């Protein structure tokens, strides 16, 4: 209890520090001006939504291998939290697009990718909600998660070939060189850490509360038997 309180406090202070840095230390970027500050929210949130997708597939694999329900709790928690982050990334990205390119949505490759991620997250959650039995739910969801994880890499090949992109190059571009102001980069990394920590904290909270609920249910059943 004490440990989780301390970690929440730590994350809170860190995040407040990052927000302060984003609005005061980071200089307005060339061409983008103050709009660049959206990126310090958008990039970490988008990163977490991809990370959550990856983690859910890893835990789905673990579940299918070991059949321990904990792995399924982690996998499904990663998806539901990842879905929320994915929506945030889509909305912040669309806002940034409207302010800089002039349209909320124009099927830019990045927008297409995040949209597909949203579709997969949505389909996974719809599938879970349709199955009653806990064990079947876990198994089918794990198979779906893995199957979608296998098909996603194909998109990486096809999308850039057929759609023209306006999206700013990733922080580390194809030449593997970092083209960013040093202060900006430091703040961005701090923001990434903050966002990942928030995600991890939410995930642990969800998994722990599920564990407690299951434990209570089991002890309740034993109480009835006695």
């Amino acid at each position, binding site marked *: 209890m004490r440990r989780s309180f301390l970690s929440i406090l730590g994350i809170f202070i860190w995040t407040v520090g990052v927000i302060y840095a984003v609005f005061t230390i980071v200089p307005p970027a060339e061409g983008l001006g103050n709009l660049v500050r959206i990126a310090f929210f958008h990039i970490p949130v988008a990163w977490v939504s991809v990370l959550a997708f990856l983690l859910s597939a890893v835990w789905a694999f673990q579940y299918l291998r070991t059949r321990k329900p904990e792995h399924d709790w982690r996998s499904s928690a990663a998806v539901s939290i990842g879905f929320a982050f994915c929506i945030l990334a889509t909305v912040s990205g669309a806002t940034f697009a409207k302010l800089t390119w002039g349209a909320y949505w124009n099927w830019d490759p990045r927008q297409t990718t995040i949209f597909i991620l949203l579709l997969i997250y949505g389909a996974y959650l719809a599938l879970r909600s349709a199955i009653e039995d806990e064990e079947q739910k876990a198994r089918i969801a794990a*198979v779906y998660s893995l199957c979608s994880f296998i098909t996603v890499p194909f998109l990486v090949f096809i999308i850039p070939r057929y759609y023209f992109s306006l999206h700013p190059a990733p922080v580390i571009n194809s030449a593997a060189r970092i083209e960013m102001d040093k202060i900006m980069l430091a703040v961005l990394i701090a923001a990434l850490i903050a966002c990942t920590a928030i995600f991890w904290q939410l995930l642990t909270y969800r998994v722990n509360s599920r564990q407690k609920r299951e434990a209570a249910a089991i002890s309740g059943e034993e109480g009835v038997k006695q």
Partner: protein
Amino acid sequence: MQDKKLPWYSVVWAIVRKDALCELRSKYAFSALTMFALITLASISMSLAGATISSALAAALFWIILFFCAMAGLSRVFVQEQEAGTLFTLRLYANGQAVYWGKTLFNSLLLIALTVLVIPLFVILLNFTIPLWLELSVLLVLGDIGIATVSTLTALMVCRTGGKGALFTVITFPLLLPQFLMVIASTTRVFDGILPEVQDFVFMAGYDMTVLIATSILFDYLWYD
């Protein structure tokens, strides 16, 4: 166990034959799918009222029709077994892999047969000329196999949810999207009379191979309780 005595290909063949026989007796899936395709095509053709459409639009329309036809009928392979109560018997008689390959093969054949029917209708109703037949047929077969393979796995998932039809489309579409985008792009080229690049074919065949292998591995996790 019967499948221990029989070689795998005869078990697969037996499943394909069984499904084909059931289909030939009831003719439900094929007639429903054909009517479905006809209705969509006719409604497009009617609303266009003779106006010509660009090849990009035609390619997209064509694959959308095929995709939704597939979504209307392909989940039947397992949903129907579930409704008839024969899923359990099937599990007793054949092993998972045989069922998977048999059902995938049947779905692919059904979809290819449907494509063969839709193409002439498409040409007639939309007043369309197709310049590269051979390339188009390769494209169609590769696309159909992709749709059939993914649908076989998702059909089994959906049949566990009690045959919720809308869910089938929702969960199949994101998995099919890479193939869908590529197939539409290549079909556009073929309609324009341009040869698609070799990489495009390699991509589509690669996608088919990957999903065939991946879904056949994942299928066992769903098949055995």
